[in-house]
């Protein structure tokens, strides 16, 4: 256990002392302040909290998380790890898990250090905006969902950092996987897992009381999934979408996510996170450093 904790503390110290993390922390605090001040009177509590959480799972902070997650196993860090640490009595599992834990801890710390106080201000302060029924459970569940998405991003970044030794290439691939993911998930009627859909579902979750969490899950609609797939492929072929355009609604008030299932989201991001870490460990143990 001693090697694991030693590497964990070493990585945490290294990350906290990096300029990227310091700038990120300052920038998140500044952006949160700007978001609160500019929407203080406009938004209800739930949409305003969703606005605060949006940069973490959509843009730009997701990009910072990607940059932090790929570097321990790629680029010049790989040489330092080999000469400085991996040639000593430590297993690759211990090194990888410690480096992963350090990054997850750091990302979640930065996320919580900024969002928890700002959410508290938004939820507890008396504002001229219309009243809203945000619950404590809803806030905790929303933070957990965003935290899980960030953990997933770090894990996928780890996997790509192991597969591609070039840091820049790993980041580019991760960007091209993460940002168009909405489109792909839409095809398979898994839209609720996409970053944008999750953000849109946050107001619903924020208003959810503890005793209404067990919402019955709808039966999977195979025909709808098939129609969506057909629609996707026909759009690739250049055909226009025959369905009528829906009525324009606010970004956070679409109302499509009344059946939002926390359990499905936990499984939908939790399982790929575990698989990514397992695959990264396997790849790291099979490769030369």
């Amino acid at each position, binding site marked *: 256990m001693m090697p694991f904790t030693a590497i964990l503390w070493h990585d945490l110290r290294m990350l906290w002392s990096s300029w990227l993390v310091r700038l990120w922390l300052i920038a998140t605090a500044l952006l949160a302040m700007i978001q609160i001040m500019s929407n203080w009177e406009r938004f209800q509590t739930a949409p305003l909290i969703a606005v605060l959480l949006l940069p973490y799972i959509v843009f730009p902070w997701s990009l910072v998380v990607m940059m932090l997650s790929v570097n321990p196993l790629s680029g010049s860090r790989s040489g330092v790890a080999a000469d400085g640490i991996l040639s000593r*009595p430590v297993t690759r599992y211990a090194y990888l898990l410690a480096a992963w834990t350090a990054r997850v801890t750091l990302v979640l710390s930065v996320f919580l250090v900024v969002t928890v106080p700002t959410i508290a201000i938004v939820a507890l302060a008396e504002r001229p905006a219309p009243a809203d029924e945000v619950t404590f459970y809803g806030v905790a569940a929303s933070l957990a969902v965003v935290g899980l998405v960030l953990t997933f991003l770090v894990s996928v970044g780890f996997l790509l950092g192991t597969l591609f030794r070039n840091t820049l290439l790993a980041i580019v691939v991760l960007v091209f996987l993460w940002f168009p993911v909405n489109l792909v998930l839409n095809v398979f009627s898994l839209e609720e897992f996409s970053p944008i859909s999750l953000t849109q579902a946050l107001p619903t979750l924020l208003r959810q009381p503890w005793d209404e969490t067990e919402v019955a899950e709808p039966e999977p609609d195979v025909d709808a999934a098939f129609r969506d797939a057909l629609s996707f492929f026909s759009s690739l072929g250049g055909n226009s979408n025959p369905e009528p355009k829906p009525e324009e609604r606010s970004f956070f008030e679409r109302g499509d996510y009344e059946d939002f299932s926390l359990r499905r989201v936990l499984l939908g991001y939790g399982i790929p996170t575990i698989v990514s870490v397992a695959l990264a460990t396997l790849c790291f143990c099979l490769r030369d450093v």
Partner: protein
Amino acid sequence: MPLAIRTERLTKIYASRLVAVNDLSLEVPQGAIFGLLGPNGAGKTTTVRLLLGLHRPSAGYAEVMGRRCGVNRVSVRKLIGYLPTNPKLPGHLRPIEYLDLLGQLYGLPKHVRKPRLASLLRAVGLLGATNQPIHTFSTGMNTRLGIAASLIGDPPILIWDEPTAGLDPAARRFTLDLIRELGRTRTIVVATHILSDIDQVCSHVGVMHEGRMIFSGSMRDMQQRLKRNVFRLDLVGSGEDLERLAEQVNAMAGIEATVGTGDTLSLQLADRVNRANALSEVLMLVATSNLTLQNVHSGRNETEDVYLQLLQEDEAHGFQRFTFETDSRDDAVHGDSLA
């Protein structure tokens, strides 16, 4: 003699494109200072990284103190103190932080770790630099910290890869003295292409060429391989006298003399010639000439000559170097067979 390190038909092929280590069988006795010698690209560093489990072998295996090497073999790496070539160390850390981290990786409790790292920093002369981050260190300071890092776990085997690369003469002298000192209680493998380092400190030597071991044995065995048929006389006198002496020597059977730069006369003796008799006759001629003899050399650098000779022989063997299913140790020249 028990073995500290043993490899059996160890092979490393990178991405099916580059053969870095080719069917290598190596034996390093316990307590030896073993020089792993070879030109750049011979496979020395790859062999070391295979021993440490940083690389996975394509075939064959390696053992350290009877334990099989591998990627997650912590017990093997605990036995080895490794100094990489121009070590890339975590630049943001300070020496104490780095050595403390390594001490924790070795599982040393605080009451052992802290005094040991302090005495190591003193021993390698870095006490005055403990407040500097490692990225501000010179090459010599980096190497000295790497040396301290290799000793923090007090391992019985040290593997130092090019320990004198990029060092100034004083730092080089310090490193070689340290190898000699540590060699009294430990097995040390020094991978290098600097022959004078091997000459000064090693008791055993292995010569690698194109990923293969072409010689393995003691230093004495290696030097005995030298064909000692070339001598050089350092003389003082006029150029005319030197030319005249060369003509007289060339008149003798089985000796070829050439005048070199800086008043030297090189003598090449034929194999059939008795060297003692031939040399005594030449020295008689020198005594009767107007020249003054200053020195007699039996070669420029014995180890260098043997090393070059071994590489030439290996190149000359051509396709004969190929073997089917035989022990690759049969191909390598062994010092034991010369005794």
